[in-house]
């Protein structure tokens, strides 16, 4: 909760003010009788300040009247005296505040003053309207501290040597001396290490790091730690998350599949943040790139990722809502100003006018969002860099009367400009001529290369498909011959019925069967149970544990690479997903491919899934919705040849899929996920060579699963040949179109432009004709395969394809003049009204330069706010509280800095050190102030009394871990954390992922459940995290699979390190590992006692490994300790 009292306080709030004052002062209150003496300072001035100053004070002097001193009020304005001392009835002020006509009544906005307030004012006037002698009016708003440039003050002289090494300490110590505060001693070395590790990289130290640091008695032991941490790639992730809070990072959200807010692939911006921080990219440079990389570095793909800041603001349904977000949060995050308060009227506290708001909006007015193609992927749905760019160069900005977007004041367009109180020089806005690749991104060399590479891949695939088709033809011919022979033989030897069977048998080669199991008896030499609750009963094998975890039985031998596996089973229950399947290539590194059938009520289906870089991928093309009932028998047949997979359900073709990842040598398992099941039978064989697998990528993907006739096989070959021809024509066409497209934008116009265009057009027509031939060949095949009932339809399609072919061939002769340019970027819909055609219009060749100018102004070293606001954010995240409490409001209504000279010194230091954030971190965490204990225990009573809330840093502030740190720390201590960096966001539902929490999908609609328990960032607005303490958090740490399984891993690790540990040794080791502190005797005693009880209860409950069970429980308890989740 922060201060944003930018609109006038409501009377009710005022009532609180008065009430609170009464409470504090503990006397009097509002006069119940007129003769009680009214205290102007306590009772009257706060009313005027809250309700009147905005228009009658330093900011504005409507009717030339000021009410910010008693004397000025008496003096009056344009309409004469506002107050006549001793004469309330004759005082215009009183008349106006009690007026019943709303047009006359003051204040004009909000509720009227309360009767008690009016009574107090009346009494005060009666008593002579006295103010204190020498009462000073409000200061000129321009004099507000934050609107003047920071000045580096002299570093205070401090007597203590320990407190004078670091300038931060000198400022802090000076304040201690001034306020007679005595700082507490330094914290324990281990706790400092934990504090600084979590602060800088978001992870607690390992035991090794602890031991190394504790043993290191050298002078620079602390510095070494700081250098290590600042050099760690995890630093960028830790601080990246902080800045993502402030800059409102959010993955896209909307309704269903429709993007309404933010953008797909916005994670590129997240990666840019992380990488920029790791590289210590200057803060000002980061701001410039976020606001205007498209103008400053139009072809630098790495920097263009910063444009995610603009893309994040996207909102499909209302442009004003969209730009309001951009204006409000640019101002709050970068400038610490509440510009948003001036959307409907002049700002009540800061010199920001209603017009100023729209002047700021004008910087953003032309921008829209587009997604630029990245190397290797042309489909913006799959990947691409979302970013802002100036699209509508002529878009005008109008002031919205009273902030109502239906009511724009079209009498004058508003130009981009900053408010005059902050911009003493005229801002230079220079339009930018964009290089051709920026507005024709299809011409970026890597885009052309990607087109060509994909074309080559297509050729290769077409060649393979052709080879496959030829093989199929040979096979079909062979089968036909065999069948003919067998038939002839059978007709001689046996009756007709048997002949058919013999034909089939003759064709079917015997593939080697490796396993047949009907699960009637346990086969411990074949199967290893992994997790779950597997039991042999009634001649079957059952798995009876539900809940969202994976369980499996693993085939103990190496499976063949190409195989056929058949699983017959009965699904019997599960909480939700009810998935059962066959997994292969299962490795300890987490690689795995699974084909399964899910009885999930929300969408039962067959599905192929695989794990890539720890993330589970569920390709939509490898899923087939189908009815799956509980307590019914199913048979899954999985055929795998290389990367090609076919799944049959109950003998019927269901899925054909080619894995996009490499195969690995791994285990074969029958697995369940949140499913109870009875296994009925399983069969594993090598895949016979003559089994024809359908290929998802082949032109015959939909081919039926059975022998083809020779005629069909011949048509397939013909089709594959045509497809290869089409593929072969792609590259020349791409090259020709690229050349022509480039020439069209070249200056001066190249002489051969027309020839280039003609060639581009011709190449495209030729390719189109080849495509028409392929289509015709496909239609012919379909016709051949069609069952009699569908034949007429197929014939019609075939005829149509012939007509289309003829047309396309004619088009080669008369090609026209237009060709399809290469596309390298797709604009997002401006609104729900934009058409597909208009979003594909060419981009403007220039940009307005407005955002470059805005960025230059924000990052100008003379800007008084930018560095201060940044310093305050950084300080706050190290020290547990900011120097300016209102982190996004440095205006007149905001809080004053507790240490103004320190704030300014740090701001100037940041600027002069090239805006290096790492420099600032180092300065802060190597300070004496940062090393203080967070305990009150040794604090002087006078100090505690004088500054109970530690505004002056006489001790450290304990802070609760942010959500991400809680989860990441659990994983780290268990040795499970996957430190892979970057890439697409991981689905929020992926509870088994071991990646850092920053990589989860995080949007308004989707949250990782565990994280959301611990006050995860609100994507709409999160300048500071909340630190709630609620029982749900206790439940999450006590009961979640994450916490309990990590507790077990930690216990196992500690045991593995030394199996012969006594309870006492184990308890100590666990305590130090989890809490980074030595237990004292009473804590040891408590743990040893608990260990005894836990061991006893584990035995009573017949836990398989009672000692490990007890140890796990002990570790689990420590993970629930206050000082685990607290950064001391």
């Amino acid at each position: 909760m922060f201060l944003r009292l930018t609109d006038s306080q409501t009377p009710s709030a005022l009532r609180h003010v008065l009430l609170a004052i009464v409470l504090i002062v503990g006397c009097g209150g509002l006069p119940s009788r007129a003769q009680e003496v009214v205290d102007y300072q306590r009772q009257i001035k706060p009313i005027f300040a809250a309700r009147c100053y905005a228009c009658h004070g330093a900011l504005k002097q409507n009717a030339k009247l000021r009410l910010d001193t008693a004397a000025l009020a008496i003096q009056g304005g344009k309409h004469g005296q506002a107050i006549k001392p001793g004469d309330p009835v004759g005082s215009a002020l009183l008349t106006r505040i009690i007026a019943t006509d709303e047009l006359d009544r003051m204040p004009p906005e909000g509720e009227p003053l309360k009767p008690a307030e009016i009574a107090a004012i009346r009494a005060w006037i009666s008593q002579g309207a006295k103010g204190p002698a020498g009462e000073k009016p409000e200061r000129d708003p321009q004099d507000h501290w934050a609107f003047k440039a920071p000045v580096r003050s002299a570093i205070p002289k401090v007597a203590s040597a320990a407190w004078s090494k670091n300038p931060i300490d000198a400022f802090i110590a000076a304040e201690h001396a001034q306020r007679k505060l005595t700082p507490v001693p330094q914290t324990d070395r281990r706790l400092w290490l934990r504090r600084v590790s979590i602060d800088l990289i978001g992870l607690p130290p390992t035991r090794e790091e602890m031991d190394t640091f504790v043993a290191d008695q050298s002078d620079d032991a602390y510095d070494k730690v700081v250098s290590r941490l600042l050099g760690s790639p995890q630093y960028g992730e830790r601080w990246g998350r902080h800045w993502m809070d402030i800059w409102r990072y959010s993955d896209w959200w909307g309704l269903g599949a429709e993007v309404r807010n933010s953008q797909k692939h916005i994670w590129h911006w997240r990666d840019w943040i992380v990488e920029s921080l790791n590289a210590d990219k200057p803060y000002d440079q980061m701001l410039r790139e976020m606001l205007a990389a498209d103008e400053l570095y139009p072809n630098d793909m790495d920097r263009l990722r910063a444009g995610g800041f603009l893309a994040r603001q996207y909102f499909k349904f209302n442009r004003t809502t969209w730009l309001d977000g951009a204006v409000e949060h640019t101002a709050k995050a970068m400038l610490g100003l509440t510009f948003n308060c001036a959307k409907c009227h002049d700002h009540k506290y800061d010199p920001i006018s209603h017009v100023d708001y729209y002047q700021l909006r004008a910087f953003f007015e032309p921008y829209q969002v587009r997604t630029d193609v990245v190397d290797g992927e042309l489909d913006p749905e799959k990947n691409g860099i979302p970013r802002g760019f100036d699209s509508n160069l002529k878009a005008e900005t109008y002031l919205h009367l009273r902030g109502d977007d239906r009511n724009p004041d079209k009498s004058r367009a508003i130009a981009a400009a900053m408010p005059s109180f902050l911009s003493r020089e005229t801002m230079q806005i220079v339009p930018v001529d964009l290089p051709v690749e920026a507005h024709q991104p299809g011409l970026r060399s890597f885009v052309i290369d990607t087109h060509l590479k994909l074309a080559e891949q297509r050729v290769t695939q077409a060649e393979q498909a052709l080879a496959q088709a030829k093989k199929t033809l040979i096979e079909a011919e062979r089968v036909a011959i065999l069948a003919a022979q067998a038939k002839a033989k059978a007709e001689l030897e046996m009756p007709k019925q048997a002949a058919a069977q013999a034909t089939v048998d003759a064709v079917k080669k015997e593939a080697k069967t490796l396993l047949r199991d009907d699960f009637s008896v346990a086969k411990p030499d074949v199967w290893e149970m992994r997790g779950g609750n597997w039991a042999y009963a009634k001649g079957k094998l059952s798995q009876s544990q539900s809940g969202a975890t994976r369980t499996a039985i693993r085939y103990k031998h190496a499976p063949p690479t190409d195989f056929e596996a058949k699983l017959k089973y009965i699904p019997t229950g599960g909480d939700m997903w009810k998935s059962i399947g066959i997994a292969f290539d299962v490795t300890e590194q987490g690689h795995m491919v699974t084909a399964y059938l899910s009885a999930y009520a929300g969408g039962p289906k067959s599905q192929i899934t695989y794990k890539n870089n720890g993330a589970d991928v569920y390709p939509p093309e490898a899923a087939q919705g189908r009815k799956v009932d509980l307590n019914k028998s199913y048979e899954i047949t999985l055929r795998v040849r290389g990367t090609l997979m076919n799944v049959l359900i109950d003998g019927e073709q269901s899925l054909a899929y080619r894995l996009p990842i490499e195969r690995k040598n791994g285990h074969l398992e029958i697995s369940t996920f949140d499913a109870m099941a009875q296994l009925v039978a399983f069969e594993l064989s090598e895949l016979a060579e003559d089994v024809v697998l359908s290929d998802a990528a082949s032109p015959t993907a939909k081919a039926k699963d059975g022998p083809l006739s020779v005629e069909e096989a011949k048509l397939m070959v013909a089709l594959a040949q045509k497809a290869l021809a089409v593929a072969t024509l792609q590259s020349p066409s791409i090259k020709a179109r690229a050349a022509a497209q480039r020439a069209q934008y070249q200056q001066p116009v190249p002489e051969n432009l027309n020839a280039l265009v003609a060639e581009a057009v011709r190449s495209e027509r030729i390719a189109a004709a080849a495509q028409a031939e392929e289509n015709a060949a496909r239609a012919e095949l379909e016709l051949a395969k069609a069952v009699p009932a569908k034949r007429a339809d197929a014939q019609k399609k075939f005829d149509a394809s012939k007509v289309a072919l003829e047309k396309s061939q004619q088009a080669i002769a008369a090609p026209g003049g237009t060709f399809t340019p290469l596309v390298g970027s797709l604009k997002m819909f401006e609104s729900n009204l934009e058409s597909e055609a208009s979003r594909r219009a060419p981009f403007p060749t220039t940009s307005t330069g407005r955002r470059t100018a805005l960025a230059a102004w924000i990052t100008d070293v003379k800007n008084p706010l930018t560095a201060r606001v940044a310093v305050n954010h950084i300080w706050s995240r190290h020290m547990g509280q900011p120097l300016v409490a209102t982190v996004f409001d440095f205006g007149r209504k905001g809080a004053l800095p507790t240490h103004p000279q320190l704030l300014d010194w740090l701001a100037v230091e940041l600027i002069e050190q090239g805006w290096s954030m790492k420099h600032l971190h180092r300065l802060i965490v190597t300070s004496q102030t940062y090393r203080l204990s967070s305990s009150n225990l040794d604090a002087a009573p006078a100090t505690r009394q004088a500054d109970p809330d530690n505004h002056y840093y006489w001790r450290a502030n304990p802070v609760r871990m942010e959500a991400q740190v809680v989860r990441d720390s659990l994983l780290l201590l268990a040795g499970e954390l996957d430190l892979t960096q970057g890439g697409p966001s991981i689905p929020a539902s992926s509870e088994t992922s071991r990646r850092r929490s920053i990589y989860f999908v995080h949007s308004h609609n989707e949250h990782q459940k565990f994280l959301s328990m611990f006050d995860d960032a609100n994507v709409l607005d999160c300048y500071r995290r909340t630190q709630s303490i609620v029982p749900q958090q206790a439940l999450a740490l006590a009961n979640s699979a994450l916490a309990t399984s990590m507790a077990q891993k930690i216990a196992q690790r500690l045991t593995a390190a030394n199996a012969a540990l006594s309870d006492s040794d184990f308890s100590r080791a666990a305590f130090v590992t989890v809490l980074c502190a030595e237990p004292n005797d009473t804590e040891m005693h408590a743990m040893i006692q608990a260990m005894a009880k836990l061991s006893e209860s584990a035995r009573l409950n017949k836990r398989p490994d009672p000692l490990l069970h007890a140890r796990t429980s002990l570790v689990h308890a420590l993970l629930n300790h206050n000082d685990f989740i607290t950064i001391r």
Partner: protein
Amino acid sequence: MPHPINPNYQSSPRGIHRRQFLSDVGMGFGGLALGAMLAQDGIVRADAPLLWQPPDGLPHFAPKAKSVIWLFMNGGVSQAESFDPKPELTKYAGKSISDTPHKDVQNPDKLKLARVTVINDANGQQRNKLYPLQVGFRKYGQSGIEMSDWVPHIGSCADDMAVIRSMYTTDDNHGAQTQFHSGRHMLDGEYPTLGAWVHYGLGSINDNLPQFISMGNREYWNAKDGHYLGPAHDAIPIRVDPKNPLDYGKSASGLTEDEQRIGFDLVGKLNSLKATEYPGDPALTARIKAYELAFRMQTSVPQTLNLSAESKGTHEMYGLDDPATRDFGMQMLAARRFVERGVRFIQVQHGAGGAGAWDAHGGLKENHTKNFKAVDKPIAGLLKDLKQRGLLDSTLVIFASEFGRTPGTQGSDGRDHHIYGFSVWMAGGGVQGGIVHGATDEIGFHAVENRHYVTDIHATILHQLGLDSRRLEVPGRKRLDIDHGKAIAEILT
């Protein structure tokens, strides 16, 4: 050296207040968000005296109701075919409104109320051709309130109900669900919902159960309630399933209660020992308490949901014996059991799918027949059961949906969204029974008498709970007058 900017600076005494608050009030489930308070430290101007404190958990004036059961029908209930029957619709069925004596309802001035937030929305249009009533209606109870034949059971409680027939809202898309709960449309941004305000304003009455509960699907409206009040004030989603009633409600590793008890005891013990090293650390104290509560909740929530403890007669009363009414009946019965145990605010959403099951753009008759069948008996069961147990006086029950439905037809047999006039009813909790408040015009188009915006419902509820919404306001989060609404004094006892 004086403070360089503010010579009058003195440290505020709020730290003492905060600590005192912690130890005095204790923490309801999800109740006291220490973090919110710590963060609120930030709002204190260095130069200002103590201006503001978070609520102390006590009502601002004597309350009439202790608990609220908020029944919300997702999608929009047709007012004409439920609680505000309009025979004129049948009389002029098939006629364009402009061809009837009621053509003035489409006077553009009167339609200005609608705010267009979603351009080009296919729904939320005025439908001109009047659609006849799809169901009969009659007078119920001694009070003789007219209601449709789809609500015979609810109708039998007419003498306990105050029907407000003059509601209006401003947004005719389903974002109005959020509007009904927070006073602001979904596209306006995030604001705390009514339940969150209640939770924020009042302390706990039962330390073993969550104080703010949500059952059933939320369709269009945001799943989070607390917003700037903090996630501690979000409703806790509850499933009426004693085996798995809430997130993280049972040990994922299958620990027995005894085993857990040893662990929790150890945590408590170690935390208490830490408190000697860190005396006066409010977070530590709060966390010790949070763990105690969490442990108790693990058993108290499933216990409350153990509906088999209820008699057969009770089961029948709520329709648990009929598959058509069973699901909602279970939620209603659970709601009563929560109320009995002192839970403050229970919201039950009915109608999953799309923008809510009640969203009858087509096939209204079939749709509403089915939906009313599902809720009518359970809701009546709840009212009667509360009454017979003497709980109705202290429990305020509200029935609402985001808007009503058009007098005109959409397609051949549906009604579109309608914002200009619709109905809400309340019962119990100090609300008069057997009364109708406000009215729409003769075709149920505009609320014409005693008009009420959705936040007036909030104000009424808060009033009955003894809360003044203006006294709950958080500095820096100014609310508009319309957000506060005005209590509907005429329906109160």
